[in-house]
């Protein structure tokens, strides 16, 4: 136990004093959120020289989509003409509008003339954001309805505890950004093991009377707790500076964020133990994080069709579901199952890491 605690303490100190770790996991997210926050926060009015883009909308002006398209935040970018589908398509094909927004049977699609330019992309991004739960909550708040009405079966019927704050895009991005950042904290574990247990220093550690499980466990715990605390800086920053709404079930949100941290550490440590080439480990782990973030639509809202059913089990996706559910009132059963799957994944990876680790450091 003494060796475990000593290693935990040393590892934590090592990571907090690592300028690269602090820069990437604390400073970088704050800068990104500052930039995004300036662009997205409902409190800050974005200044732009862009003229609103002319679009045609085949939707009910009094419906949810109509309300969304006419709200102040969106109307700064879009000049919407409500019409029927046929007319909207005609206007788009004649390039009289940059895009036609069509709502049919609850599905919203964007018809664009040709490839489309900046305005078309802007329109698509805004519509994509409408489809996301964060924006859905905004609409729900504005229309006096609850999220269930917008998202259906995945969200339970309950009033949204919005208080005095109306959630905006920053609330959505704060969640996805934090989950992505925490996924990348696996680099902490990788760094700690490479410069510790798998280095000359580690060989010295192994000649001491401390047991291998105490050393490996201490380092894993140090990497996990430090990474989580580093993530909490971003968590607190978004909450205190931008007033991001993290809901009333903070312990559940934190438990989910911690699951992502554990998953990330376990994955990185497993790769470090299983693959001897450090460069390869770095490359593979980065590629995995990037892919997981991508398929869970962390970078861009890309539809993968049927594959989305599979990608909903990407760690980021599962964490998003639980956190948004905790904040805005999601399906409890789905949230619980996702959280269990996340922790089970951590456990499996951790066991694999431990087995590989014992062999690697032997």
């Amino acid at each position: 136990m003494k060796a475990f605690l000593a290693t935990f303490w040393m590892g934590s100190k090592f990571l907090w004093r690592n300028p690269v770790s602090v820069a990437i996991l604390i400073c970088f997210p704050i800068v990104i959120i500052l930039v995004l926050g300036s662009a997205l926060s409902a409190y800050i009015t974005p200044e732009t020289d862009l003229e609103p883009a002319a679009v045609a909308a085949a939707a009910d002006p009094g419906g949810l989509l109509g309300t969304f398209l006419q709200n102040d935040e969106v109307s700064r970018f879009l000049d919407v003409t409500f019409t029927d589908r046929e007319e909207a398509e005609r206007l788009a094909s004649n390039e009289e509008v940059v895009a036609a927004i069509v709502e049919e049977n609850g599905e919203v699609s964007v018809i664009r003339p040709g490839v489309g330019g900046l305005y078309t992309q802007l329109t698509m991004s805004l519509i994509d954001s409408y489809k996301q739960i964060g924006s859905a909550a905004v609409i729900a708040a504005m229309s006096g309805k609850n999220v269930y009405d917008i998202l259906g079966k995945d969200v339970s019927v309950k009033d949204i505890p919005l208080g005095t704050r109306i959630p905006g895009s920053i609330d959505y991005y704060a969640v996805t950004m934090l989950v992505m950042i925490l996924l990348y904290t696996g680099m902490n574990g990788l760094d700690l093991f490479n410069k510790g247990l798998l280095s000359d220093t580690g060989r010295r550690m192994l000649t001491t009377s401390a047991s291998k499980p105490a050393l490996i466990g201490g380092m894993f715990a140090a990497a996990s707790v430090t990474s989580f605390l580093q993530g909490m800086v971003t968590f607190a920053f978004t909450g205190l500076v931008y007033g991001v709404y993290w809901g009333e079930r903070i312990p559940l949100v934190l438990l989910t964020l911690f699951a992502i941290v554990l998953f990330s550490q376990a994955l990185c440590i497993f790769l470090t133990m299983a693959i001897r080439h450090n460069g390869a480990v770095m490359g593979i782990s980065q590629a995995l994080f990037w892919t997981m973030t991508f398929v869970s639509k962390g970078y861009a809202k890309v539809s993968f069709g049927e594959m989305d059913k599979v990608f909903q089990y990407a760690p980021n996706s599962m964490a998003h579901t639980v956190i948004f559910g905790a904040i805005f009132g999601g399906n409890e059963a789905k949230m619980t199952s996702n959280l269990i799957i996340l922790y089970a994944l951590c456990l499996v990876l951790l066991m694999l890491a431990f087995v590989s680790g014992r062999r690697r450091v032997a």
Partner: protein
Amino acid sequence: MIVSMTGIVKRYNAHTALDNLDLTVNEGEALGLLGPNGAGKTTAIRVLTGLTTADSGEVKLFGSEMRGTAAAIKKKIGLVPQDLALYETLSARDNLNYFGRLYGVTGATLKDRVAEALDVLGLSDVAGKAPKKFSGGMKRRLNIGCAIIHKPELLILDEPTVGIDPQSRNHILDFVELMNKQGTTVLYTSHYMEEVERVCSRVLIMDAGRVIAGGSVEELTRSTLIEETVSVEVRDPAPSLKESISKVQGVLRCEGEGRTLLVTSKADSQNLARILECATPYVILGVEAHRPTLEDAFLTLTGKKLRDGNET
């Protein structure tokens, strides 16, 4: 006997790093382990400290068989590895504290030991600074400090003075001598013969994974058949002088032009008086006998050919 390695064999694929190695270290002695690159010194230390296991043979430390998890045995050993094994971004004090705790030293004892180690290694003034800002010598001293914080009974130093200035080297050697005088058994490997001659009471020479010679420095140089050389300087030597010296019993060759002649004899020829007798008709300006050193013994035993293979 503190260390006993018997018939140790360690192979890395086709390469045999240790080939039936037999090695013993007696309590209280300072044993020097010499060998060219690739001789197997570091592998022997890795086997000894449980970092790697031998393919066959027996390792006993303090009378008990050494296994990788033998915590009780490991507490009695301090290893100063060849490469710096420190956390360079943590302070010197943090490093000492950490390794002390890994050996189970805690509380006031740890605090005292850390202060003592910093003092004796001349690092008290920089205790709060990170080793990345240290000179090579300071890092090497801290590297030693981390191995002695728990006051080991056996201190193993694997080339502890590589790449440092003479002052730091002297400091380290003084310290190792002091530890040995205070009762710590020392196992010391180095490429610097003068260090081994100074610190060690007994020397083992390894080559190709086994011990090829052992004994005190004096015993090694005497038992190794090393040629002796005498340099004789005389005024206006005649060409016949060279010839007459060459005929002295045991002389292998007599070389040199001008006033100085270099005479090489077989080992233990004891013919200095007869060589000087030949030079008596001349004015002898100087005589210098070169005594065989440990380095001579080492080179004679292991060969003078350069070996740039990787150390194993």
